[in-house]
């Protein structure tokens, strides 16, 4: 049970980080020369094209994270020798989820255009 909850949570983290990373790219399109230096001309143009989709991408991140937290924190009871033993996802999985959540919130709070 714990292993499955952990896998679900990790999958959610990967999805959330992927969506958040795409949103970060869309956010960085216009923050200044550093974006061009990192992304190049093609990347800067791609980032600018992603910018209108930023709210949808952030929403997808939130959904992934919500699924991950729900899966990691809901308690499942395992019955051993007739006695119920609540289990939950490991500390590593939960820590990773929280780190992904903090990163996603930070990206969401970045101003969409910084010039």
């Amino acid at each position, binding site marked *: 049970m714990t292993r499955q909850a952990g896998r679900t949570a990790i*999958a959610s983290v990967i999805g959330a980080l992927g969506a958040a990373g795409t949103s970060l790219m869309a956010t960085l399109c216009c923050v*200044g020369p550093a974006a061009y230096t990192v992304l190049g*001309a093609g990347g800067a143009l791609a*980032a600018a094209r992603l910018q209108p989709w930023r709210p949808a991408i952030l929403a997808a991140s939130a959904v992934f994270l919500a699924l991950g937290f729900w*899966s990691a924190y809901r308690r499942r009871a395992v019955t051993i020798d007739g006695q119920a033993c609540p289990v939950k996802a490991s500390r590593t999985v939960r820590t990773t989820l929280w780190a992904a959540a903090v990163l996603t919130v930070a990206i969401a709070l970045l101003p969409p255009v910084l010039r």
Partner: protein
Amino acid sequence: MNRSRLLWIAAAIVAATGLAIGAVYLRGIPGPTRPHQAAGADASTLREAFNADAGKVRIIALVSPTCGACLRGASDLQNRVFGTISDPSLRGYIVWVPKLDGHENNVGEATHTIADPRATHYWDGDSYLVRSYNQILQLGQDAWDVYLLYGPDARWDGPNPPQPQYWMHQLTGVTGPALDANAFADHARALLD
């Protein structure tokens, strides 16, 4: 198929999409490199070209070669204005300006965004037009990421360019219509008719 497997598949799709976007776009902007020339002291070279095209509908765009939004604006100009208007009486003057640490050596790849032969690329290294259009458009800030439309009767007779007949921008803190390339094309077509 259980929830965990579904989430792994979704996560893999997200990751693959991100990698695909990176592979396609980070290799650079596709297209040929167009030649560019200096706008000249006090934009004199551009002024001569502008007046030589009297009788035509003219577009001036002030864009930075290192700004993603500018590159998107220029690309939209190519796809939705030049790409949808075949009239040879339409002219474009794409002026690349040194904003967001843009340099002349960034202009080459930036010209990939607009390949239409009716458009000519310039480099305004002295930011002359950046300051001029600040005053003309009363922006209260440097003029860049602005897209200006002139009718056939427009002439550039003084040191500063004339007031555009219509303009759009992608700046923040500026009144005026935000760039909508389709609407800009509609205004250009109206002047060509």
